[in-house]
């Protein structure tokens, strides 16, 4: 169990990193893009806007916490 947990922890750190909210924001933005594209609405702008938002919020959180 310990080895399994360490294995999971390694891949979590490797892909997700320090701030899981960034990953969550990306997944939500992809889902919204997919839904808009499916409905025939232009969706190319969602990811750039989402990236600017999640990056800004993540950096603000990090620098305010003094990390």
């Amino acid at each position: 169990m310990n080895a399994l947990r360490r294995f999971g922890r390694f891949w979590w750190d490797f892909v997700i990193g320090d701030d899981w909210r960034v990953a969550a924001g990306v997944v939500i933005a992809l889902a919204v893009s997919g839904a808009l594209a499916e409905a025939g609405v232009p969706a190319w702008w969602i990811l750039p806007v989402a990236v600017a938002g999640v990056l800004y919020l993540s950096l603000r959180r990090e620098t305010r916490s003094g990390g």
Partner: protein
Amino acid sequence: MSAAFLVASAFLACAVEMVEALTIVLAVGLTRDWRSTLSGVGVAVVALAAIVAALGPALTVIPIDDLRLVVGGLLLIFGLQWLRKAILRASGHKALHDEDEAFAREIEEARAAGSERRAGLDWYAFTIAFKGVLLEGLEVAFIVLTFGSAQGSIPLAVAGAAAAVVVVVVVGAVARAPLSRVPENSMKFAVGVMLTTFGIFWGAEGAGADWPGGDAALPVVLLFVVLLSFGLVSTLRRRRLALA
């Protein structure tokens, strides 16, 4: 254009990771035992090659839109990690990576470690070299596989990464010292920008969105990510100075 970005990204990402791996290998090799160290390096390289060889063909079977959605999402999450750290370093909120300091730390740890021999090898030298190369190389393997498969050319990404390995190994063998003059922090910034750019581009395409102008939108996305990153560096730097 995309092919040039692909090779440049794989080269830069691999170079920056190999510089870090070289620091570990040199410190252990010079302090402990070269035969054990190089054995560790060799086994790690074989393991990495096996990962790329096993997963590469498997990825090419997945339909391109599904692949780009998954790869775009992963690259974006992974790239934002790099970019976030690079912005924190560039704005002074995180210490810059220093190879000389890392080298001194590795040397100190290698000297302090006990001596244990297994299969005729200095086990400390073998495991540290193996882990160092494998862990740094895993990021390269991830980038090579994701970039290469989404662009439809894993061999091109492998070529970019292999060129970086050759350059770093040759320069490292000649210098026999950590490559501290390599602008590693700037290179990491550039890799973060490229991973994020491709992540946005492929992620949106994979989700079903159409970019205005098709592939011609890629440099515009790149410019957007560059301007966003420099804007955030500037904002965070000003805030740090205001609080100082």
